[in-house]
């Protein structure tokens, strides 16, 4: 049976509700538009929203299917109070066109209750969630189905009535689970939330008596704070792959900068050097009062002895890793890569991009590794991202290689040719009805009279008058 899993505001005004049969809803509102529920897509969107909320607090927990908990302890002062923080969250969510309800309270339970059943945007004063929760419906306390049904049966209509029941009889009647929920809402019992990004313990902070804004000062504090963190990493024999420096401005804005390392490291000088070119993007405004650094992807590394014999061959850590780091941080991660085999017959899909020096290349088990490219299959040194059309193609019989073609305005007479090598579509990767003989490619390696070698293909098969085969040039061998 099909039921409504969510309704829009307009629909709810028309009397539709969640859980209603779809047929009933159609009877009530004949012009109703429905869409299939996509729980997985909702979960993905919620996760994305959770990641976005990290701007407000580093500790974000996802409350499936439609809620987020933000631990705002100790971050509200950056906005100038909880009210201003909540206002900022509401403004940004509204700017994104998301319907939402929000509340702030001491406990996750109380915040949940207020957000779901209380006044939208409520802020419970510290320790004062009790009176705010009292007028709400008992469902606000997140009871399980059974307890909730029993409460309904007893005619209890407000959470306050439940709070008034002495603890002993309450536990006897509704079970310990229900009492725990009540205690969690009122802050008498702690509740563990599963935060999406656990706040990293690798964190260092420098606060200044006077706000700083000079570029040289920024460079200096970047090194100082990195040195502070690196000293801790060194003491525990750890190294990190990613570092994020955040400059906290006087006006509450945070300017984060990130650098990544190919191999885990803890050399403050090197890390500061990677940050240096990015510092000019930092607008200090009226000044920066606090700078923090966090390290992620922390893993143990052994401390190496400094070499006595410097003429010996250097290791990867000394030469290549810093080079790759410099290039990645300067050009961007997508501009430095190592070509990695991907098991695909389609030429343009056969090459993936791996991070240079990444462990996955040599650490993976042989059976997990994709098969390397076949050296015996002739492949061009240059492959065009988009095959280029060729015209004036002459082929004696349909399956013969072309004896002449024109590419970029120049006619090439084919002297020798090899082929065809038929490369079919990977029909198993898409819907079967999308598969088409027009996607079949017959590749030929041809050499023209001057000796230039080309990789041509014919897309489609002969015999289909609606879609005559088309010739393309996909690469050049040289």
């Amino acid at each position, binding site marked *: 049976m099909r039921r409504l899993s969510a309704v829009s505001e307009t629909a709810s005004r028309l009397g539709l509700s969640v859980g209603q049969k779809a047929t009933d809803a159609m009877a009530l509102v004949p012009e109703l538009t429905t869409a299939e529920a996509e729980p997985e897509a909702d979960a993905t969107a919620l996760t994305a929203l959770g990641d976005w909320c990290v701007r407000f607090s580093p500790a974000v927990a996802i409350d499936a299917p439609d809620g987020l908990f933000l631990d705002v302890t100790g971050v509200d002062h950056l906005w100038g109070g909880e009210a201003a923080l909540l206002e900022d969250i509401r403004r940004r969510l509204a700017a994104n066109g998301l319907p939402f309800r929000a509340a702030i309270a001491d406990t996750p339970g109380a915040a949940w209750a207020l957000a779901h059943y209380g006044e939208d945007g409520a802020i419970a004063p510290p320790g004062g969630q009790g009176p705010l929760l009292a007028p709400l419906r008992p469902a606000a306390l997140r009871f399980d189905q059974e307890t909730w049904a029993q409460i309904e049966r007893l005619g209890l209509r407000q959470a306050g009535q439940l709070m008034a029941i002495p603890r002993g009889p309450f536990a006897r009647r509704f079970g310990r689970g229900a009492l725990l929920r009540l205690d969690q809402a009122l802050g008498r019992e702690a509740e563990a939330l599963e935060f999406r990004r656990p706040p990293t313990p690798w964190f260092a902070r420098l606060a200044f008596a006077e706000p700083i804004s000079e570029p040289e000062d920024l460079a200096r504090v970047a090194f100082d704070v990195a040195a502070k963190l690196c000293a801790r990493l060194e003491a525990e024999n750890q190294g990190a792959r990613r570092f994020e420096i955040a400059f906290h401005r006087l006006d509450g804005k945070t300017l984060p900068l990130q650098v990544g390392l190919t191999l885990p490291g803890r050399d403050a000088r090197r890390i500061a050097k990677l940050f240096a070119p990015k510092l000019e993007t930092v607008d200090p405004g009226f000044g920066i009062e606090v700078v923090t650094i966090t390290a992620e992807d922390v893993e143990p590394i052994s401390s190496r002895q400094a070499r006595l014999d410097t003429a010996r061959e250097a290791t990867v850590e000394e*030469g290549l890793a810093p080079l790759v780091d410099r290039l990645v941080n300067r050009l961007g991660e997508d*501009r430095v890569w190592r070509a990695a085999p991907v098991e695909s017959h389609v030429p343009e899909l056969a090459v993936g991009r791996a991070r*240079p020096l990444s462990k996955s*290349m040599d650490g993976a088990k042989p059976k997990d590794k994709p098969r390397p490219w076949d050296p*015996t299959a002739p492949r*061009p040194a*240059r*492959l065009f991202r988009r095959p280029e059309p060729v015209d004036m193609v002459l082929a004696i019989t349909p399956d013969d290689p072309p004896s002449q073609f024109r590419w970029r305005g120049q006619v090439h007479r084919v002297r020798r*040719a090899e082929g065809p090598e038929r490369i079919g579509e990977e029909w198993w990767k898409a819907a079967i009805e999308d598969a088409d003989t027009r996607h079949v490619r017959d590749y030929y390696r041809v050499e023209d009279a001057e000796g230039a070698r080309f990789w041509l293909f014919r897309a489609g098969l002969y015999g289909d008058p609606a879609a005559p085969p088309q010739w393309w040039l996909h690469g050049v061998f040289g």
Partner: protein
Amino acid sequence: MSDFRAERLRAARAKIAVLETDGRPDAGTLPFGDPRIDGCLPGGGLPLGRWHEVCGEGLEVETAAAPAAFTALLVAPLARRGEVVWVLRRDDLWAPGLVGLGFPPERLIQVCARDEAEALSVMEDALATVGVAAVVGEVEAADLTAGRRLQLACEKQRATGFLIRRRPYGGTARREATGSAAATRWRVASAPSEPPAAAFGLGDPRFRVALERCRGGRTGAWLMQADGAYSQEMTDVAHPLRLVAELGDRQLAPAQPLRLAG
């Protein structure tokens, strides 16, 4: 008398070599394994720890496929000693195509630079890095200053640089730089392959290679063949390029003398 002259010449050459390498030990050479070509090169092989220019001609000025294939063949023996960084402006270099030429793809780091200056500075940076055996860069041209900087970077760790001159698509030809700090300049074009009589299809790739400039050596032009390309044996040979025939010196021979090569 002639002995005396030869002696003087040799002494002067050694002195110049010391001056040029700044008193450092020589990085060595990479011989082609054929006296006809090694004899033209100073030290009997492609000088390492220097940088070399590779140009294409005709349509290849923009696609630079033959220069890329030729460079990959030159670099393949070096790739066994360390990493190879290939700096591109267009990311159309295709690793599966290099595997068949005996180039180990796991040694290749590709970098796509945003402009000419960035490509040159990435080359410089990579050349001066420990563990990098060779750096290939695809740029339009390197002027004298850039060339000198590349040479200094090469000397730091004795890495070898290859500069593939490649014009951006649709760009107009720039004036050829008059001087260059490169050790050698090669002009490379594809040549028709000659498969064995009974074989079907294409033979091993051939290149018309002209050594147009060579510091301390002589120029020349040759027809070369990448023996055993696109086969399993490719990785085993000492040098993947085999000299098939000598062509006329100082100029790319037209199509006629190629028949001699068969």
